[in-house]
């Protein structure tokens, strides 16, 4: 291209006249990730490490618990058609199945909630939406865990 004079602003041959000049400078672009006074303080403590370890360890236990649960409920001894009030009542008469279901409930809920917590942290961009999504998540988690635990411990097979 020929080397004709370019505009003094150094903007070059672009369509339209330059909007900004030396006297009317372009607005400063604020870096969205700049560390300012509002930037969250660095955290001390091992919560993130504990959460990370919990995901791995609970995952291993859940593989056994959930696959065993699915096998018993859906495949062995007549399959899904056998499930009814009597079947559940019979199983929960034994402390072994009560503990199995209790551990499965707690681990699955905490594992899933922690996974969703990391997803919210990764994908929610605004602090407000992050806060509300996590509040909803924690409420649902606590409600489900407490309700499930209550049912397992107060289950009455003679209910009418």
């Amino acid at each position, binding site marked *: 291209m020929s080397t004709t004079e370019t505009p003094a602003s150094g903007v070059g041959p672009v369509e339209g006249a330059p909007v900004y000049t030396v006297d009317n400078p372009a607005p400063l672009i604020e870096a969205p990730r700049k*560390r300012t006074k509002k930037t969250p303080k*660095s955290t001390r403590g091992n919560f993130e490490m504990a959460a990370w370890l919990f995901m791995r360890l609970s995952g291993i236990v859940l593989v056994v618990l959930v696959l065993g649960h699915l096998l018993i409920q859906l495949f062995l001894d007549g399959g899904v058609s056998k499930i009814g009030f009597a079947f559940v009542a019979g199983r929960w008469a034994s402390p072994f199945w009560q503990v199995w279901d209790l551990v499965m409930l707690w681990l699955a809920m905490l594992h899933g909630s922690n996974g969703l917590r990391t997803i919210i*942290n990764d994908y929610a961009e605004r602090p407000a939406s992050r806060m509300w999504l996590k509040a909803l998540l924690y409420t649902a988690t606590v409600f489900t865990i407490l309700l499930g635990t209550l049912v397992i411990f107060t289950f009455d097979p003679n209910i009418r």
Partner: protein
Amino acid sequence: MATPVLDKADAAGQPEPGFADSPYITVTFRVRRFNPEVSAEATWEDFQLEIDPKERVLDGLHKIKWDLDGTLTFRRSCAHGICGSDAMRINGRNRLACKTLIKDINPEKPITVEPIKGLTVLKDLVVDMEPFFQAYRDVMPFLVTKETNEPTRERLQSVEDRARFDDTTKCILCAACTSSCPVFWNDGQYFGPAAIVNAHRFIFDSRDEAGEQRLEILNDRDGVWRCRTTFNCTDACPRGIEVTKAIQEVKRALITRRY
């Protein structure tokens, strides 16, 4: 005697007999342009170049800047893959423009060139590297020893101890890894792979005595535990550093040194 010359002139368009194996091919560069003084929007602009496919993408950008459009803005210093200035997103992948040959990235299709993601674009291919270097500074990338006196002799180290962190000494701070990380794209508070690699370089150095302090920094909410092991950083590293492996080694050190 003059006729052959005329024949050659007539055959313009086809390759000349003596130059049938001309190395030059026509390549389209599709460059992401942004100039905040003209428009708030970034746009794609195409440039047609005659270029030897054995040349690099950086040579193409030079041709554009020097011959076609002087306003094209990009960073480059050494142009030989050492200074780490010209990391950019070429055909959707983070690479160094000075280490990417045209022939290796399918010159039949337009070659897209964009600024690296996750950092604020200042103009065209130039981004604000400050958040990246802030994370780098936060991990204390320098030797720390407890002795207060000036050393009177060299700090010696065995070959094995040196080999322990050899991989992470290769980092040139080009930001190709950090700006390929999806966690960093969405939350710039995450330290990012490059900072962790440079912490790894000192954590596993037998001469350094602040490893525990660096591990504590990376144990932060925005530290190594945010890594999702997507391996984007390992794929992006122009120096072939196994970045994800280094991050995992820091995680393992955090767990094994505590329990």
